[in-house]
């Protein structure tokens, strides 16, 4: 790397600019969430509200069945996580450690799944779920995501890095395949597992498109839909209330990210035995 002072300064300025580009919308959201309706419309814009309008949050929460949305979001996201791990772990282990007929074909198929955007397949999936009669239920939001091609890929890579001798030692130690997965593979893949859980949680907690397509009543709606509906309340959008809702929506993600950022970084660094 170039280490001349000019390069360092330019590098620093670049990083600051990037930070501003990413951070400003977020800060704006947080700031607006605490403003009065009047303050959201003044020009030049105010960054720090005169008084913090906590009632924005109350108003957002009370403007619809938000408890229902919240429970739906939690149930959907958690069940997706559980189902994904139940399918990803055995699949990744098999791809990483076993030889079986058509292994490469099936792995290629998995990789293709990774490349197809959900917008492309939502119609057939919709028709399929419709024929099962589970539209507008939380199952319609969960089952299409019961596994994750990305998860299989990432975990397979992690499992492949475990030296074969470890598995052989475990087999000599009378361990069953399930014990090998549970006691040796999974603890070694912990950073990857945490990363996968985070990615999946964030994606499905924030997911707007799929619930929008699959739900028609509050019965199965999730938080992102509820927040989006805030905009349509009483004709015009009360941006301070919408932003308060958004802040509520991202709060769990922020909290989790705050505690787990170390793991996300570590997930991409192999820490194996020497």
């Amino acid at each position, binding site marked *: 790397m170039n280490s001349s002072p000019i390069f360092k300064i330019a590098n620093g300025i670049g990083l600051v600019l990037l930070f501003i580009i990413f951070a400003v919308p977020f800060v704006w959201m947080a700031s607006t969430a605490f403003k009065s309706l009047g303050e959201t419309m003044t020009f030049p814009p105010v960054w720090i509200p005169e008084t913090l309008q906590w009632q924005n949050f109350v108003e957002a929460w009370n403007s619809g069945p938000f408890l229902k949305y919240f429970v739906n979001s939690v149930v959907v996201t958690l069940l997706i996580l559980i189902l994904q791990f139940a399918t990803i772990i055995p699949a990744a282990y098999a791809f990483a450690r076993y030889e079986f007929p058509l292994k490469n074909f099936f792995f290629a198929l998995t990789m293709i799944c990774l490349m197809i955007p959900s917008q492309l397949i939502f119609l057939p999936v919709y028709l399929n779920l419709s024929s099962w009669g589970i539209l507008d239920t939380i199952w319609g939001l969960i089952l299409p995501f019961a596994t994750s091609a990305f998860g299989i890929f990432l975990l397979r890579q992690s499992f492949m890095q475990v*030296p074969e*001798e*470890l598995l*052989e*030692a*475990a*087999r*000599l*130690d*009378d*361990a*069953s395949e399930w*014990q090998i997965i549970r*006691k*040796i593979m999974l*603890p*070694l893949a*912990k950073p990857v597992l945490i990363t996968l859980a985070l990615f999946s949680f964030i994606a499905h907690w924030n997911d707007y498109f799929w619930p929008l397509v699959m739900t028609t009543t509050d019965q199965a709606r999730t938080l992102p839909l509820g927040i989006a509906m805030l905009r349509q309340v009483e004709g015009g959008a009360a941006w301070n209330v919408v932003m308060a809702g958004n802040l509520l929506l991202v709060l769990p993600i922020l909290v989790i990210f705050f505690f787990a950022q170390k793991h996300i970084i570590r997930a991409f660094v192999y820490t*194996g*035995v*020497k």
Partner: protein
Amino acid sequence: MAEIRLDNISKTFNGDQVVKNISLTIKDGSFTVLVGPSGCGKSTILRMLAGFEQQTEGDIWIDGKRVNDLAPSKRDIAMVFQNYALYPTMTVKGNIEFGLANRKVPKKERNLLIAEIAEIVGLSDHLDKKPDKLSGGQRQRVALARAMVKKPKVFILDEPLSNLDAKLRTQMRTELIQLHEKLGTTFVYVTHDQVEAMSMGDEIIILNKGVVQQKAAPIDVYQSPGNLFAAEFIGQPPMNVFKKEEFHELQDALPEAAAYIGFRPEHAGLALESAHVPHTIELESEILTLETLGAETVYKVKNRVGTMNIRSFTAPVSKRGKCFATIPMEKLYAFGADQTALPALDFPFQKEAALNGVR
């Protein structure tokens, strides 16, 4: 304790036969070393013994039981791996305990066993540490403890010392020999290092290209190598070997079958002046390199026969230049055209000497 018997074992990988029809018996309670260059099939034999590879042909017997179709864990063996293969997320105690817990040994008994083994290998103070907090030697001991705690009939060790530094390696070598004496279990040890093979084994099995070259006690391998490969593999530096024709002064004395002539570097001598010692081949030579190793000096010299190593404990020559290499005839080895060793050479002067009662 168990005797191991391999019956016509072969192993083929993708049409490539890496182990060729090997039959051998490893004695109960012996310390047997499989040694050979990389790719000779020694690790494959070990892995077939452990059950990680299925032999293409032949039978494996451990303690009188045919184990061909037994899973590794049912063969009553324990293995120490080259990279130790410690479970990195478990503590030392967890590593030793894992096999016992899987065998449903009661907790109380497990703790007793672990304490006992930890004491033997000197790990009592490190039981709660993870492997990455241990030194190379300590990891090695954990691997040994993990193997020992299961009280197996056979210990399999796959180049267990190759990741240690030279000093620790020497120390662990001694410890392993003592451990073997204490346990009395059959040890099968794989290495490419002839020093380990010579110093540790009761018996060494030299392998090359999937074929057993020689199976004998270390000293027998050294003194009477079974073939050219064994002669050149064991010994540091290896035996000097030349085509018979190079020694024209010997032609009449050598048996018809001899095709190669060899001698150990330490049996040859070096002098600045020609001495014309009887029954000795004297070659006017030039020293190419000399390595001073303290107790001994290794010379590489060139003469009309070729390039040869000479090892001396007296360092008769201290700088490069011209000199005379001397090779006593009674120290020569002869090998046939198929590279197998021929009976010890029998020169007329030896008979006379024997008759006269002098040597």
